[in-house]
């Protein structure tokens, strides 16, 4: 068997609304391996956040199974084992910080796990250094910027020594500086510490920085692969209300005009190189 950290098998999920039960997923399957850096992309209401809440047993499957490290999330005995392995960071940075001192907040998870005090101290310091917030360890969270608060929230999860961090639109309420801080932090975590990252987002530029993109619409996975191949499906993405990066849009429009250009140039440099190649020999 492959080394799947998160395995979703035939997941059904139904919730009750005023107008009767609403089906969110039907037979959804997905595997995420250890060490992956995955973006789950979709517009609001596509089911991406609901899926995320299944990864650490905040929601339980109505049908099918979700496995974390081989453990079924439906098994109540394993609840804390699962939650320790899969940490979650949410959209609103204010509503996930419990304590009024940064380091006390980071300690909250390990305290709940019953880690000995000396080790908590070590874990808190390590976690804060990893996210670059060690200098703020004695600050009050409400005085920090949005990006800093999210980094503290990430440190709070790291201190539980998780295998995987699921981030549910962690940048939706941040300004560009804060978004960049969060993206850098999680990229480094994945690269340097091998933490599996699942990033729920509707920002294409963030998804473009992940190794794998899973696109969801109305509770279904409609595309899954590296960003370079997923983003070339420009019509598909537009049909589900997602915008593609301007670089891809440029390449796409030029191709329609008869230019011979690859679609998979995501960043500015690649795109500029590809376009300038068209004009080789006829430069100003």
């Amino acid at each position, binding site marked *: 068997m492959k080394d799947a950290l998160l395995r979703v098998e035939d997941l059904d999920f139904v919730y009750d609304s005023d107008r009767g039960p609403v089906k969110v997923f039907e037979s959804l399957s997905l595997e995420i391996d250890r060490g992956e850096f995955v973006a789950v992309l979709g517009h609001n209401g596509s089911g991406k956040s609901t899926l995320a809440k299944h990864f650490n047993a*905040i929601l339980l499957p109505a049908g099918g199974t979700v496995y974390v490290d081989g453990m079924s999330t439906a098994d109540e005995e394993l609840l804390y084992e699962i939650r320790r392995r899969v940490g*979650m960071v949410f959209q609103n940075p204010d509503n996930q910080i*419990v*304590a009024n001192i940064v380091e006390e907040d980071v300690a909250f998870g390990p305290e*709940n796990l*019953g880690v000995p*005090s000396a080790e908590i101290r070590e874990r808190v310091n390590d976690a804060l250094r990893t996210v670059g917030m060690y200098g703020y360890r004695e600050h009050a969270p409400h005085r920090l910027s949005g990006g800093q608060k999210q980094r503290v929230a990430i440190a709070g*999860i790291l201190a*539980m020594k998780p295998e995987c961090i699921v981030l549910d639109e962690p940048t939706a309420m941040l300004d560009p500086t804060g978004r960049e801080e969060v993206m850098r932090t999680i990229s480094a975590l994945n690269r340097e510490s091998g933490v599996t990252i699942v990033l729920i987002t509707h920002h294409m530029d963030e998804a473009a920085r992940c190794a794998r993109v899973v696109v969801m619409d109305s509770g279904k996975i409609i595309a899954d692969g590296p960003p370079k191949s997923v983003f070339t499906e420009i019509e598909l993405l537009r049909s589900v209300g997602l915008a593609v990066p301007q670089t891809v849009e440029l390449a796409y429009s030029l191709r329609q005009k008869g230019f011979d250009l690859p679609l998979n140039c995501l960043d500015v440099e690649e795109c500029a190189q590809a376009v300038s190649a068209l004009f080789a020999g006829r430069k100003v």
Partner: protein
Amino acid sequence: MLRDITLGQYFPGHSPVHRMDPRTKILLTIGYIVVLFIAEGVAAYAAVLVFLGTAMVVSRINPKVAMKGMKPLIFVIVVTAILNLFYTQGDELFSFWIFTITKQGLVTAIFMVVRIILLITGTFLLTYTTSPILLTDGIERLLTPLKRIKVPAHELAMMMTIALRFIPTLIEETDKIMSAQKARGADFESGNIFQRAKALVPLLVPLFISAFRRADELAVAMECRCYRGGEGRTRLRVLRFSRVDAYGAAAFVLLVAAVVLFDLFGIGVIS
């Protein structure tokens, strides 16, 4: 605006008073208040003042900042002084119109003001030098023996922590909603008491809804971090009595001895 509240604020530091165990500090503060109420004469008050002054100096809290915290309470102090000044019977010092100032009145007023100031400064010193989290920690542990009689010590402490954490956030939010409603022409400042109460609806409804939404999200976030009540929980900080606690306790014993002696022998008591 609403943000300039120093009352109950914590000033981080590493002074011996900061390092003192929160349990010691809570007990000492309670003891201090009791002493303040049994103290009678000038000498006893002087002893209290010396005790508090030493604590202030050792804690390295800027007295100016401490005074600032007193600001919202000036009104209370002035009213108490006036009431005592005019409504105490005794030997007349001088009088005008319907007011009479007596010697006793003057003395009581001065003592009352000094007592209130000492009381406030003393309790503030506790919050100035103890982070809210340690304070709740201390309270939780002091209450732990009461768990046997079903006092939910951990839950109370957790509630306090969360309340302290969210007060600034909610104050900020109140500010924001107020501005937003003002932008729609809401008027919070004029009208009679009923009109003003009614004008608060556009502020309070969104504020409550937001507080509940926050509570909801926070609960999920806490669950995600494996929170399951006080059972089996360890703490980042281990509370341990150390030498500073002994010094603090010793100083307090001296204070009690001095005040009791002064009281007993009537030293410095103005009659």
